[in-house]
């Protein structure tokens, strides 16, 4: 019995030693599909042999090939496989002819699906995980659709509901291998709107899909104010503002309920960062685009350089000036311009606007003026850096009104006014607007405020009373300037000028005198004497409010102050033969008829014209003209007067003829008939 037990033990030990001759690496633990597993033997006969890996593949050769050296193999399918090492028949084998080893290959590949609970018509994304040939997978979608040579991610839409078994064949799509499979339950049709990504940023493209709709033509409303459009079931849209928007969709031309979905658009987070905001020419500037989504960015550096590049760029400017750097994401596919300004220091003719103010001529942004008023102008005041040209135009009632093109100099405060003649439009009553747009410097994007002026439905002109327009006034008869009250007038001012221009153009150098009398002005001696003599003088009155703003003005009036004192003298009275006749104290007694009077006149100033009129008993008997009379110059004349009456009164009148005429000298003679 002991012998039997010993023999059995020997046999068992011998058999055990035979089985254990294949050694694996790893010797224990888990081995997954696609993972290398090594095998070696520890007995050698130097005979031909074959390793049967158990999955249908073999490796043949001398058994010393496997002797104490791991030969590796990859299992393509999960399962338990028995390695079988067979030596060819040998006359005197020292090793076993057949050796065995059992290995278990585990599965670590899988398929994920999104959404987890899909429905008919909804695109479903399948993702293969841990596949060994991830770029070449054969997908069997279970509904008869097979995709070959595909990657790890695939999107598929099921047309009908049901349960589908999805199989993915690894190993370059080898359908003979065991596929990784998934059973998916596809729910019946459901009308939904899907967005990808779910929470986009401002300007980021969002794929919006109408799923389960009965038509391929969908009326889309993206909820951001963009116009209603009809597109296909899949549209791409960019939201330009952050916030929550309601997307609605409906089958085009069909009676159906609106399907809606809320989408949250996150604020813009893209920006440009400059290494330095101001630098000199030829110094490198580094610009970094933060949070841009695309790999490439379309850069416009504002100096004519437009280039596609990465998020960080270095640029060198060759000319001074203000430049606007514009970056467009997705290599320009994004319409949104992300901007930054850089100032390149140096001399050029581009001026930089530091401060500007636009007002009306009352210093405010609003003014009320009567119809056809000339007292309204707009003023643009600018403080600039540099020397160069500033161009732009005034815009009145949304119409380009007047262009300007001015040279501004370093350190100069530039003031530009709307033109005086013709001025701002004041024919139409009601509200009018005015603003200004700069076209140069080009890099300045200045938005000026809009000013307003209100035109009343009536004209408000001051009517002057005295002196009348075109009056000739003797200098010793100081005029009383008077006018009628004007609507709204609190105070009045008067101005005198030697020519029309200062008054018509409201020359700022014109001196306006306050009129304490309200509706009249009597000049003081200094003012009166300052007005030029014997020449036309122009005057104008204007009405003001309490803030000294001009409400109304008179038309320009003309007047001439003349110096009286023309003297007429009689040198001789004679008969027609030239015989002198005595006269005493302006009286002469003679029988002769007619008489010939020889006289002269003088004037204490210069005069273009003087006219001497001679009357005999109210009848004008002679009229003489003296041109270009010099100061105190004696100008001689001769006239015949009748002496037919018993008594005749001869009157000499000197006229300063300046349209109208004025008597500036008189002489009387009395003739008596002897």
């Amino acid at each position, binding site marked *: 019995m002991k012998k039997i037990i010993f023999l059995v033990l020997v046999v068992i030990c011998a058999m055990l030693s035979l089985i254990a001759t294949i050694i694996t690496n790893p010797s224990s633990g888990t081995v997954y599909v696609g993972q290398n597993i090594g095998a070696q033997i520890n007995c050698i006969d130097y005979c031909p042999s074959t390793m049967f890996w158990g999955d249908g593949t073999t490796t043949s050769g001398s058994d010393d090939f496997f002797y104490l050296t791991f030969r590796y193999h990859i299992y393509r399918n999960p399962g338990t496989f028995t390695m079988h090492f067979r030596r060819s028949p040998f006359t005197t084998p020292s090793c076993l002819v057949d050796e065995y080893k059992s290995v278990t290959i585990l599965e670590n590949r899988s398929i994920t699906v999104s959404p987890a609970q899909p429905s008919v018509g909804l695109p479903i994304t399948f993702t293969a995980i841990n596949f060994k040939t991830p770029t070449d997978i054969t997908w069997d979608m279970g509904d008869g659709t097979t995709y070959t040579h595909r990657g790890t991610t695939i999107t598929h839409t099921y047309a009908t509901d049901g349960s589908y078994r999805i199989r993915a064949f690894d190993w370059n799509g080898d359908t003979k291998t065991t596929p990784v499979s998934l059973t998916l339950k596809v729910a019946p049709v459901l009308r939904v709107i899907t967005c990808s990504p779910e929470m986009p940023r401002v300007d980021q493209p969002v794929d919006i899909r109408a799923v389960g709709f009965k038509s391929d033509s969908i009326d889309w409303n993206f909820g951001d104010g963009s116009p209603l459009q009809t597109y296909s079931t899949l549209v791409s849209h960019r939201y330009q503002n952050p916030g929550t928007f309601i997307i609605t969709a409906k089958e085009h031309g069909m009676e159906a309920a609106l399907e809606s979905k809320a989408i949250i658009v996150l604020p813009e987070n893209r920006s440009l960062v400059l290494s330095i905001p101001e630098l000199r020419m030829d110094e490198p500037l580094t610009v970094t685009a933060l949070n841009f989504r695309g790999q490439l960015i379309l850069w416009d550096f504002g100096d004519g350089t437009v280039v596609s590049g990465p998020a960080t760029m270095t640029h060198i400017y060759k000319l001074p000036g203000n430049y606007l750097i514009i970056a467009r994401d997705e290599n320009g596919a994004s319409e949104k311009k992300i901007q930054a300004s850089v100032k390149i*220091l140096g*001399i*050029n*003719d581009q001026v930089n606007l*530091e*401060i500007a*103010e*636009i007002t009306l001529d009352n210093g*405010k942004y*609003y003014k009320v003026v009567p119809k056809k008023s000339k007292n309204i102008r707009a003023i643009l005041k600018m403080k600039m850096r*540099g*020397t*160069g*040209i500033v161009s732009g135009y005034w815009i009145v009632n*949304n*119409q*380009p009104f*007047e262009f300007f*093109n001015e*040279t501004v100099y370093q*350190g100069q405060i530039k003031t530009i006014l709307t*033109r005086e*003649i*013709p001025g701002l439009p004041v*024919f*139409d*009553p009601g509200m009018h607007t005015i603003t200004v747009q700069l076209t140069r410097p080009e890099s300045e994007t200045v938005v*000026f405020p809009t*000013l307003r002026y*209100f035109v*009343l*439905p*009536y004209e408000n002109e001051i009517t002057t009373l*005295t002196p009348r327009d*075109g009056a000739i006034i003797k200098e010793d008869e100081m005029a009383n300037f*008077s006018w*009628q009250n004007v609507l709204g007038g*609190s*105070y009045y001012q008067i101005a005198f000028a*030697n*020519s*029309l*221009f200062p008054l018509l*153009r409201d020359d700022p150098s014109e001196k306006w005198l306050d009129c*304490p009398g*309200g*509706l009249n002005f009597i000049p003081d001696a200094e003012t009166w004497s300052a007005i030029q003599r014997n020449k036309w003088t122009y005057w104008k009155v204007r009405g003001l*409010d309490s803030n000294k703003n001009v409400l109304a003005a008179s038309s320009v009036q003309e007047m001439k102050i003349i110096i009286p004192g023309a003297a007429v003298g009689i040198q001789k009275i004679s008969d027609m033969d030239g015989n002198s006749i005595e006269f005493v104290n302006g009286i002469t007694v003679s029988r002769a008829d007619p008489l010939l009077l020889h006289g002269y006149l003088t004037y204490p100033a210069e005069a273009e014209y003087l*006219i001497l009129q001679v009357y005999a008993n109210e*009848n*004008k008997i*002679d009229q*003489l*003209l003296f*041109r270009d009379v010099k100061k105190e110059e004696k100008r001689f004349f001769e*006239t015949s007067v009748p002496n037919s009456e018993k008594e005749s009164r001869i009157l000499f009148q000197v006229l300063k*003829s300046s*349209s109208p*005429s*004025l008597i500036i000298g008189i002489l009387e003679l009395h003739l008596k008939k002897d």
Partner: protein
Amino acid sequence: MIKKISFVFSFCLFSILLSGQKFPSANYLPLVEKQNNHINISIKPLKARAIFFLHYRTDGMKNFQIRKMHVNSSGVVCHQISTENLYGKNMEYFIVEKAENGTESISLTHTISSFTKKESPEIYFQDTAAPPVQSRKWEAPVNVNASLSTSTKISDNSEYPGQNYTANGNLRIFRNISKNDYQFDFDTSFAHIDPRNQDTESLINLSSMMIRLKKGEMQLEVGDVSVNETEFTTSYLNRRGLRFELNGKTLYLNSFYTNSQQKTGFDGYGVPAANAGIFGATAGFNLKSILKVRGMFMTGKDTLDSKTVYSNENPFRAGDIFSLWGEMNMFKSRLQVSGEISSSNYGSAQENDELQKESDTAWKAGIKYNYGILSFSTDYEEIGGLFNSIANLFLQNDREGLNSNIGLNIKTFSWNISYLDKKNYIQNPLQDMLHQKRVGTSFNWGLGSHFRIGGEASRDNLDYDSSTGLQTSSSDMSTNNYTASIGYMAGSNGINLNLGKTESINFTSNLNAALALNLRFGQFMTLNPTLSYQSNENLADGSTSTIYNFYLNSEITFIPQYFTLTLSASYMNNESEFNKSSNWTAGANLNFFMAQIFNNKVRPSLSIKSQFQGAKYGNIESNSAIFSLQADISF
């Protein structure tokens, strides 16, 4: 019978003809010789011992002058009339022959035309009728002026039609009392604006305000006050606030507390906010009219929160300033010497918390001389880089240099030569120092009462100061500027033509021209067209851009003071190598004014308005038309 009638008719006819001259006619044919300033009239007498008298009269005269004619050595009777003092251009004369027996015969009347080429002035006398005397009317405790304008659109096919109606109005309440040396003013205006820019405008705006109390040399103002001291301190500071002034013969005081920015909406009655107000006080004295000395302290803060200002500077500003200035007038004010020295402690920042003040100084000295036709002025200033005034946004600091002018004024002709030599950015850490030199000349000449011509030429040179060593002189920039203008004005008519060229050498050449007309055809039509042209050439690459603009504003009066038609139109064309655009507008408004119907007590008006506009940018065109109805009323 016919013979008898013919005889009677012939007798009557001769009688009538002869009745014009009471004397028998003398059959003389005078010889007339025109000479310089003389006319010689001569006849050959038929009777040897007769005496001849020349009777003549000039234009406008009924009576004849009489001169005795003389017989010369050849027996010709003649008389020479001096025409130098004769009025008019034409003369009538006849000759009377007086025979020895006392009979007189008279020649036919002859005419001499155009005896002179010189003009004679018309003679008429001014109307001496007394003007209507204004009767003093009852005055209300306060005066009220109001106006309202409202419109509604009839049709609008523009892309962004906006609000369908407008409603704008104004209300002014004022009262002015002047008595002896007292003066009281109350004047306030409200404006209602709809539609409006909601960011910058209120529905109701206190558009202006003034309460002034004045007695003799003192005045107190509350409202829109104006403070104008010097360039370094307050230069035409027009703000809402309070101001007290004593402007005596020897003593001067001025104190103010204003908002730092212009108030535009209904922003209160003028009490400044703590972080946006300026307080200042000036004291000084006058020594007759010879010497004027002023000292000033000012402090304030600003947020640059303004509806009329654009700025890329720091919004939060704070500063104090001390300033002392004086002015001395000598030689009957022909020579004026002035100077100012100021010290500021000023800072600005993007955030209020970051504000840090720094001190700096500025000074200025100058003289002005003005006598007769000659004027001369020169000044030198030095303004520190950190010097600034809280009350003068436009102060240019960090500069020093000279500015000089010589002027000549002869009647309506003025000529000016200017020279400027200044350094800029002396202390600026970022900007290299710039040296600026400019010489220029200009003239203005009023030709008669109606014409005016003007011209200007200047050359400006700007370069980096070589002492900094940062830049060579080759980077100078020179700017030449030439302008010319001619204007004509007569009554309500005016024409202005302006031409100008500016050339920044190596950079830009700019040409511009503008023609503006203001034409009035009686009371029935006013026409204001304007044409302007600009051409800009980039000298670096030779590219050019041009702009043409036409603007027309016109009124046609159908019935004066009742019916008018206003027309407006504009066209702008902008062309460059990169783009081409044009836009146009046209409008026609038919207005019915009813003020005369209501005897000017109230002034209503109705308007039918139309506006058409179009634009073309490249190949994209857009057009629109707007029709609206507007009603206005005012009293």
